[in-house]
């Protein structure tokens, strides 16, 4: 039976991401961090802007939610084109390279962001394993 694929940034895909993050990432792996992060996808195929909002408490991914319209406040926000995020999710591009090229922007304390980047990489590794249809 072919593997079920989730449509990128759909409600189902977001639920699957949340489920896997909770299951695969232990508080130890996530260094017990408490933070919030928005990844803002501009120029989605339907021309809309969407965002994923991640809430972590003491290393536990409490929630992952899809946001359209008004964005909640987050400690960090990362903004890029849908295509750019898709390339990162397909492991065709490193997030670091996207940031260094200026095609992806980060808002938030850079010192903290650099400290947390290995932890965020772990999060991305889990997301990359979700069977996705772009």
């Amino acid at each position, binding site marked *: 039976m072919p593997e079920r694929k989730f449509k990128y940034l759909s409600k189902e895909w977001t639920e699957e991401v949340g489920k896997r993050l909770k299951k695969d990432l232990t508080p130890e792996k996530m260094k017990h961090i408490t933070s919030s992060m928005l990844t803002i996808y501009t120029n989605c195929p339907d021309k809309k802007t969407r965002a994923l909002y991640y809430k972590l408490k003491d290393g536990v991914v409490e929630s992952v939610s899809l946001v359209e319209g008004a964005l909640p406040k987050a400690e960090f926000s990362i*903004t890029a084109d849908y295509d750019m995020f898709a390339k990162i999710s397909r492991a065709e591009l490193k997030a670091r390279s996207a940031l*260094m090229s200026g095609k*992806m922007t980060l808002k938030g304390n850079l010192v903290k962001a650099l400290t947390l980047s290995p932890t965020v990489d772990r999060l991305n590794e889990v997301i990359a394993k979700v069977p996705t249809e772009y």
Partner: protein
Amino acid sequence: MPEKKLKRDDPYFIDFPKRIKAIQKEMAKHGIDVYLGSRLRTLSWTVDAFMPWRSYIVIPPEGLPTAITFVIDAARVQDDSWLDQDHILGYGPMGGQDQVSLLSGLIKPHLKAGKGIIAMETGMGTYLPEGHLTLFEFVMLKAALPKATFKNAHDIIDRLSLIKDAGTINRFREASRIVDIGHKAVYEAICDGGYKNMTETEIAGLAAYAMRKAGSEWEWSFTGGNEIASGYRTGLAAGACTPASRKKLKTGEPLMVDLHAMFRLGLGDHSHNYFLGKATKRQLWHAKNFIDLIHKCLKAYKPGVSPTTLADEMLAFTEERGFQDYMVPGFEHGIGLMGDEWRIGLNDGPFEYWTNPDHVYKKDEMLICAVQYACPEENVGFRYENPILITAKGCEFLSKFPLSIDVV
């Protein structure tokens, strides 16, 4: 709590929130919506951390300021500063994290529909690390904030930082105490022929070692750290800047030892002079001229005196004694927390960004009493530098190393 965060009863305590409020009061008076500081002196005076990389501070109309520095040093600056980690940010070559994005992001919330007055710090200086806003930075910020008006307003901080508070004065006293330890180490190393086979750089290094052992953070001077000169280098025409060279010390030559120590951004700066092994009658005549002049100069510094009135008095004495040809005709340079060097007082003199010769000293101002004697034709020269505090009736010279020109 990091060792550098001080309690109110500590002799080196400085009330930084009070300083920020004083700046904000002046901003309101001048209709300034947000202050963008970039000079090293401004950063030291507001952040209380040594910020050697290109850095900025954004001061809002009320509340805490935010300082920005190169990301590789941001955590260390935060560790040293009174500001918390949300108010010390790092910049780097990443989308949204470059200097202009971060600065415009911090400034924008204080403008109304993008309009308002942004104070900046620009000008001209003899001091290379001054840190005025560069033309490129200005052009980029203007493009990011097109409706805002930029106004040069460094005089706000220059005026507020002119009179020194107790914590600042005590930091300078301690830096001078450390410099005196450096001088003692040099004296002990060179006396009784110990100078033989030594070089100027070696003198600079052994003084640095002694001062570091005593707690100095840095031989802070941008003029090469500890400035050591011997022989003809002491008498370079109109010279007052001698980074140590590899020149070997020689018997019969003068030696100029100008040491710099830093303690919590307070700066020690004292020069002492020697003759190595022996001195001729003529050399001793030069030495007596110099020492007598320094005694006179230190007696003259008091409230109400200006660089011009002091120079007139000192130069009259040099003429009377017949050594006017050997004097560099200036007797001071400015000083404040790290980065505040060179110009005395405010930028209000006949030549922009130079000391106003008619600046009138007031109680609790600090300056470096700086005197340079140079006789190039005889390869002899001396330097005196000492941080002095203008007191109610005179001055306190902070380095206490005995004033003399020793034959060692």
